């Protein structure tokens, strides 16, 4: 027997679409995809959303999610075609030979059961071990995965552990039945960058220790470069490039792969600070009915026509800062100065002109636009509201704005649902620009977008900044984005600004502890980064 564990040949996957008012039609989601995974190896599946990477991953357990059907090709696991073994055969395969780690561990666990019960459930179901053996194995896996108190953590409920720990518990669950293959479906995507590195290291170690094979699905090339032996790049259900990790990262041949590798190449030369258009002075804020200060004495300046990036992990208070600046959450202490004058703390008390000067772009463009309004109405409303434009004049200006965001003719009468994710975000940018603001708050505007699309949005924002001289307050957790567009940076941690200054200043040593942790946790697109970083941290810890 060869050492090939999983072999997929000429996979074809279809689904049925139901366009309104038309007869249902079959659409091909994946076609002509072939790959093989050797025992103990990891294959990374990478692509943008809709590339079919999860669908392909799940085909390794012959599963089609949401009406998706595998209609062609072969999926050989341990030498037999699992598409032909019937449902009884599949029941013996799933959870025994092939297991699965989902993206959102919080949603995948049953909140009413203890962790241990869920971790060993599949193992017991398949009668692979006795309960005592399974529990012992789970505890040793918890230990391998670096979970605190491995003996007792299984007695907790899912809400009693953190997101990063839960993801590791799910990895333990997948590894418990001693499977031959584990499918990791974006296991670190929902985690903060400082947590991601720990989970990634734990998963890598567990894979190496147990000798299991894995399919690792992600959209982040830098992440997959740390963990995979081979990488397959996918685009709209087709294989683009397939090779060793070294080949894909260091010498990609296909244009699309090259674009993915160099996606973080948006560059912006830092400007020295000028007169501030917005000053945040000693802001302390808490949400109504709570006794906890979400922001503590925050002071930052946003210079005219420049970009201030607010960086931090979730819960650091960066979005709350945006709510305070816009006036949605009046602060309990401190003041906001715009152009040298104090802004009313509550937006309802601000003048129409004050409201016009500060615009906002949201993370989820989907929910930031009224689905029942056309693009023309969405962009036209600020024109009408602030400048009294009507009729043909308004339409002409809307079209100019659409040209500015590189969308051109033919979009004005469409509805948001008819646009792609990147186009939606562009429309939101146009709506903000329509008000001719002096500053725009960008709240994680690229987080929900695929890397190539996000790069396009960043370039657009930079171009518009040069032309319109608008200042950005850029809220993000992604340091690569910050490097690309910021002039100055404020690092936030637990409601405080822990580091603040020009970009080069903030990003050069000496670092404070938190900034160091944050910066070193961002995956770099090179082989061996993970090991190096973990080793460095161990050395530092030993040194202390």
């Amino acid at each position: 027997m060869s050492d090939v564990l999983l072999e997929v040949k000429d996979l074809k996957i279809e689904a049925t679409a139901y366009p309104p008012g038309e007869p249902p039609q079959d659409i091909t989601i994946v076609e002509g995809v072939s790959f093989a995974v050797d025992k103990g190896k990891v294959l990374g599946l990478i692509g943008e959303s809709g590339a079919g990477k999860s669908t392909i991953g799940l085909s390794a357990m012959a599963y089609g999610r949401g009406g998706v059907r595998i209609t062609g090709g072969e999926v050989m696991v341990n030498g037999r075609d699992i598409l032909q073994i019937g449902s009884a055969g599949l029941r013996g395969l799933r959870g025994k030979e092939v297991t699965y780690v989902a993206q959102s561990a919080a949603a995948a666990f049953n909140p009413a059961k203890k962790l241990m019960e869920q971790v060993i459930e599949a193992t017991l179901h398949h009668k692979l071990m006795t309960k005592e053996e399974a529990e012992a194995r789970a505890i040793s896996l918890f230990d391998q995965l670096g979970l605190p108190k491995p003996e007792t953590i299984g007695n907790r409920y899912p809400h009693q552990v953190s997101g990063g720990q839960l993801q590791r518990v799910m990895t333990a669950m997948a590894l418990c039945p001693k499977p031959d293959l584990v499918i990791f479906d974006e296991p670190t995507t929902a985690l903060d960058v400082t947590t991601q590195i720990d989970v990634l290291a734990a998963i890598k170690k567990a894979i190496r220790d147990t000798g299991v094979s894995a399919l690792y699905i992600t959209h982040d090339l830098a992440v997959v470069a740390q963990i995979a032996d081979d990488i397959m790049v996918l685009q709209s259900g087709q294989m683009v490039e397939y090779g060793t990790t070294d080949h894909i990262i260091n010498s990609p041949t296909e244009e699309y792969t090259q674009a993915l590798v160099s996606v973080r190449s948006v560059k912006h030369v830092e400007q020295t600070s000028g007169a501030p258009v917005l000053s945040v002075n000693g802001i302390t804020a808490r949400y109504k009915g709570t006794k906890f200060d979400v922001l503590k004495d925050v002071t930052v300046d946003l210079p005219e026509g420049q970009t201030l990036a607010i960086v931090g992990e979730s819960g650091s208070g960066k979005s709350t800062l945006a709510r305070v600046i816009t006036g949605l959450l009046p602060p309990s202490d401190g003041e906001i100065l715009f152009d040298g004058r104090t802004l009313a703390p509550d937006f309802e008390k601000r003048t129409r002109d004050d409201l016009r000067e500060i615009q906002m772009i949201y993370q989820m463009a989907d929910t930031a636009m009224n689905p029942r309004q056309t693009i023309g109405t969405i962009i036209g409303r600020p024109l009408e509201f602030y400048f009294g434009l009507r009729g043909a004049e308004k339409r002409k200006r809307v079209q100019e704005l659409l040209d500015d965001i590189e969308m051109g003719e033919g979009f004005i009468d469409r509805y948001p649902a008819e646009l792609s994710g990147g186009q939606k975000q562009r429309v939101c940018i146009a709506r903000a620009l329509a008000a001719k603001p002096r500053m725009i708050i960008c709240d994680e505007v690229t987080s929900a977008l695929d890397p190539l699309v996000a790069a396009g949005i960043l370039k657009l924002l930079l171009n518009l900044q040069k032309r319109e001289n608008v200042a950005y307050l850029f809220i993000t957790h992604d340091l690569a984005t910050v490097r690309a567009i910021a002039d100055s940076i404020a690092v936030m941690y637990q409601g405080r600004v822990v580091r603040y200054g020009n970009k080069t200043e903030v990003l050069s040593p000496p670092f404070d502890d938190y900034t160091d942790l944050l910066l070193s946790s961002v995956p770099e697109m090179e082989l061996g980064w993970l090991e190096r970083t973990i080793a460095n941290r161990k050395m530092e810890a030993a040194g202390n």
Partner: protein
Amino acid sequence: MMRIPFAAMLGLFFTGVYFFMAIFAGWIAPYGMAEVVGDSWEPWSWAHPLGTDSIGRDLLSRMIWGGQTTIFVATMGTILSFTLGSVLGFIAAVRGGWIDQLLSRLVDLMMSIPSLISALVVLSVMPVTLPILIIVMGVLDATRVFRLSRAVAVDITVMDYVEAARLRGEKQLWIIFREILPNALSPLIAEMGLRFIFMVLFISTLSFLGLGVQPPMADWGGIVKENKDAIVYGVPAALVPAFAIASLAISVNLVADWVLNRTTSLKGGRG
């Protein structure tokens, strides 16, 4: 060109027929509303296609005139309950705070008493005229509409586009009518079909109990009441209005279902 499914077509047809007869009752009805034209409970004949009622009035004419009253009262009641309920519901959702508390608790209070009982109590001390009937029914039913529209609007007010509109400085009314209403429309329209039917049943019940439309005016519930004794003699006069109520209810629901299906699939709006 959109295709109308068969069920909706059927519903549209019967709803159309009922409304047509109601609107043009004066031209269609062969006899006057309270005109006595024969003996009581005459069998079906060419002169009186549905026979005559308890005191010898032409039942077909009574049905047509009665349909006019029933449909008029139900329609006006529905319009009143929707205007009142949805506007108050939206205001409660958009404003929140004590306004929301006050309105919601008031509605809870009203809903804690069965609406038929409150209607009977109010109507027994008030003069029973059509406007009073409509107001009583509309206000009582507005509580249900309030609940629904508030629940739907609360979901919508937390959307970023509503926040964006507020930050733009838009007035409450603009937010309610331009941002929230279009997105709340599909559940409200479905509810409207259902509410209309409940209105028909409500007015029919009241009339049957004698506190609704007062004789000699006709309405379907009243016709059932007047002719209920006929069932003992095997005369189907009471079943005719009952059939009319049932078939109208089903027809309107078929139409409401179809409208709901259409509006939810419209340009990816919310479900």
